């Protein structure tokens, strides 16, 4: 079981991460790579923080709260799974199996926080009506608390009591359940990639998509090799566009 001090430290770290995602954006600490690194330092197990963090980072690539959408909470999943793995001595596969349900469960805390903030929005309406600038100034920082508590409190509970719960589950569930969850985790990156695709003009520039696929699937090039080939392809395309005298089109929506 984790000590109360470590659990509090992890809860504070989760609060910092979510505030960074929402407000500061110092370094996107909420991304699993960094959230996991921090949790690894707090738990005194940096290698575990790096491996779990980077695995969940790749699993969640492309998943971002575009337009304030609620997304699976990989930040808290990373922190909680590293904490529980440290406390129970679970191996790497076990911590990924813990992370997946946590990521899905914690989405509800985001919904709670977004709903709760509506209360401030309505109070702001009232202050606008009164022309009360001072009250508007004073109330806004309370929003930090919404986010900090929405993740800090559940992370504390999960870290402090989680190892007990997880031990109980591990004792009851047969091995194949975790193997199957692990297999499911393997296909999770499909969501992030699909979200990225949704943002891109894939129909217009389909050939770049195929190029990336071929370089990875047939040529087995590493990340840097693919990046360099991609740069060449984009460079040639842009050069030929310029020679034809048709640069990228301007968006019409901006002609105000």
């Amino acid at each position, binding site marked *: 079981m984790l000590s109360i001090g470590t659990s509090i430290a992890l809860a504070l770290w989760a609060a910092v991460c979510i505030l960074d995602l929402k407000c500061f954006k110092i370094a996107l600490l909420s991304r699993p790579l960094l959230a996991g690194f921090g949790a690894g330092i707090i738990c005194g197990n940096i290698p575990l923080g790096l491996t779990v963090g980077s695995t969940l980072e790749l699993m969640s690539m492309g998943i971002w709260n575009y*337009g304030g959408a609620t997304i699976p909470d990989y930040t808290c999943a990373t922190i909680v799974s590293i904490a529980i793995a440290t406390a129970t001595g679970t191996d790497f596969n076990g911590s990924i199996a813990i992370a997946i349900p946590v990521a899905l469960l914690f989405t509800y805390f985001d919904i709670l926080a977004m709903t709760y903030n*509506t209360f401030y929005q309505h109070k702001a309406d009232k202050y606008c009506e009164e022309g009360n600038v001072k009250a508007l100034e004073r109330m806004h920082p309370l929003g930090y608390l919404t986010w900090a508590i929405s993740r800090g409190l559940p992370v504390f509970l999960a870290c402090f009591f989680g190892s007990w719960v997880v031990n109980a589950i591990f004792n009851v569930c047969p091995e194949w359940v975790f193997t199957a969850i692990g297999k499911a985790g393997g296909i999770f990156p499909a969501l992030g990639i699909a979200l990225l695709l949704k943002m891109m003009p894939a129909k217009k520039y389909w050939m770049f998509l195929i190029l990336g696929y071929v370089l990875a699937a047939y040529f087995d090039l590493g990340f840097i090799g693919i990046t360099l080939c991609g740069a060449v392809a984009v460079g040639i395309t842009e050069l030929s566009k310029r020679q034809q005298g048709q640069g990228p089109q301007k968006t019409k929506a901006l002609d105000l």
Partner: protein
Amino acid sequence: MSEKAIKKTAWRLITSFQACENYEREQAYDYLYCMLPTLEETYKDDPEELKKRLKAHNEFFNCNPIFTGPILGITSAMEENKVDEKTIQSLKVGLMGPLAGIGDTLVFTIYISILFSLGASFAQQGSIVGPLMVIPLTFIPLFLCRYFGTTIAYKKGMESIEKITAALDKVTTIAQEFGLVIIGAMSVLLVTAKTSISFSVGDTTIALQDKLDALLPGLLSVLFVFVSYKLLTKAKWSPVKVLFFLLGVGFVLGAIGVL
């Protein structure tokens, strides 16, 4: 003209934007909070007008937080010149969509995804260079975009917005082409979907995965990406719902030994 008020606005964008994000009007109160320094100074002698302006900036707003700076800058300058509030409102609404689109694509979809995947690949080899390298490479551009996006748009006015969006448009096209190459590669590299089904024909066993690889390597991975994409775009499923779907399908296929 007050330099102090716009600097305050930029700092508020950097430190507190989205603190009061909510389901009803998204970043409305956050936008208002950023505008308070200018509004208070401009309308301090006209309480009735101040109320009207406060209410106008407390309306629905939803944009990419990194690229909201130019909108804040330009509306601050307009408020100082006491431009009609309907004009300001329609400008806000007009800029919010395009800047959100460009900002989300450039910053989060392309830059952050590629940077953090690279960091993660270092970290997987156990190197702390992975997390350490992404910190400055995230902090510096995101900070500069928000600070100077606000102050430059304030000083240069509408003309700067046109220049900024035209330049960004060009960069966005290049980034999209490049991003698609990476996405195509990632579908094969990141999605682990291999079947362990095999058939016995006489004395030899044939692994289905080998046959699939001969047909199209990474076919199953691409298939899962395609299904998720269709669920998001055609069926309009939320990301969380798609993830539950992937968990269900992956769990069942994993349990019965197909994956």
